[in-house]
């Protein structure tokens, strides 16, 4: 990299916006070239001159006018928005706690089974009754499809509801959970 190119890049180099490779090339050049190094020193010295002499002192007594306006009641302070309370640290912590609690509760709560056996007995007891061969076949089809689908539970429950609707009421077992066969 030649001196002209390096001097064009000196300002970018000094604020570190060059890509890594170019930065290293300029740095390497500066270690070998006294003239370019001197140019960088001049730039740094100019900025020191600016820092030393560039500021103005504000006129004295500026706060008096501010104080007068405030104390005279000419300045109406804005109130925080009502919803700003949700942005405060305690509110954020409480919200996070509630969210974590809800997740924990969801994990611990008993849920309906999400899987069904892949093979079904042709005389599967459903709702306390023995399904006919045709119904059993229908259930099996539903169950097989349901175990793979995203709406597995719903499909299974719909299948059971369909069976229950097709059976006479007197065959419905009044004791749920107890398996028995109807002769």
């Amino acid at each position, binding site marked *: 990299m030649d001196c002209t190119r390096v001097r064009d890049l*000196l*300002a*970018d180099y*000094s*604020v*570190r*916006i060059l890509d890594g490779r170019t930065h290293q090339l300029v740095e390497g050049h500066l270690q070998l070239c006294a003239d370019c190094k*001197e140019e960088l020193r*001049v*730039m740094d*010295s*100019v*900025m020191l*001159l*600016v*820092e030393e*002499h*560039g*500021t*103005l*002192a*504000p*006129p004295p007594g*500026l*706060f008096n*006018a*501010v*104080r007068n*306006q*405030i*104390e005279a009641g000419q*300045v*109406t*302070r*804005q*109130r*925080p*928005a009502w919803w*700003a309370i949700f*942005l405060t640290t305690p509110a954020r912590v409480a919200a996070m706690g509630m969210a974590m609690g809800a997740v924990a509760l969801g994990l611990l709560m008993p849920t309906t089974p999400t899987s069904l056996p892949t093979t079904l007995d042709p005389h599967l007891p459903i709702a306390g009754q023995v399904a006919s061969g045709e119904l059993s076949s229908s259930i099996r089809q539903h169950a097989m499809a349901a175990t793979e689908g995203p709406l597995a539970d719903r499909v299974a429950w719909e299948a059971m509801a369909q069976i229950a609707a097709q059976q006479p009421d007197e065959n419905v077992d009044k004791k749920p959970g107890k398996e028995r066969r109807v002769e």
Partner: protein
Amino acid sequence: MAAENPQTEWVRRAQAGDLQAFEQLFDQYQRGIYNVIYQMVRSEADAADLTQDVFVRAWKALPRLDAPEAFTSWIYRIATNLSRNWIRDNTRVRKESLDQPFGDDEEGGTREIADTRGDPADLVQTQEVQDVVRSAISGLSEDHRTVVTLHHLEGMPVEDIAKVMHCSVGTVKSRLSRARDALKRKLAGFIER
């Protein structure tokens, strides 16, 4: 538990209506705010008025500041927004020519742009050096003046300047680089080689 930054405590107290705490903040920030505004509007009298206006607005809006630790970038943002609005409403500032009277000196005097061909040894008076430096800064574009003032005169990190100016850190660095280049061209004659 780490002690809270005293400035953050001042902000909290000022939010609650403590005028003394607000005065502490004023003392700490007035110079920086005044210089940023001055570099944008280029008039000492207007910069003084706008500085007061910034603090009045800050007092009004402080209760709505959610994060007291963000006070610095917040108040500088008020200052730059207010100055931009002022410039928009007072377009004469933009049309001002280099031959027109500079600053608030009623007797006139022209804006001095550094002539680097001059002999640096002639500039022995601090006041003269200040005038030359300020003129050089004034010759920069508005965005470049702002980054130079915030970074080099007020020592604000580029990350905070990016928040104040609503731009990326890369943009701030790029403006800083262009400004340094321009200032070097204007003021290098005053540096001993």
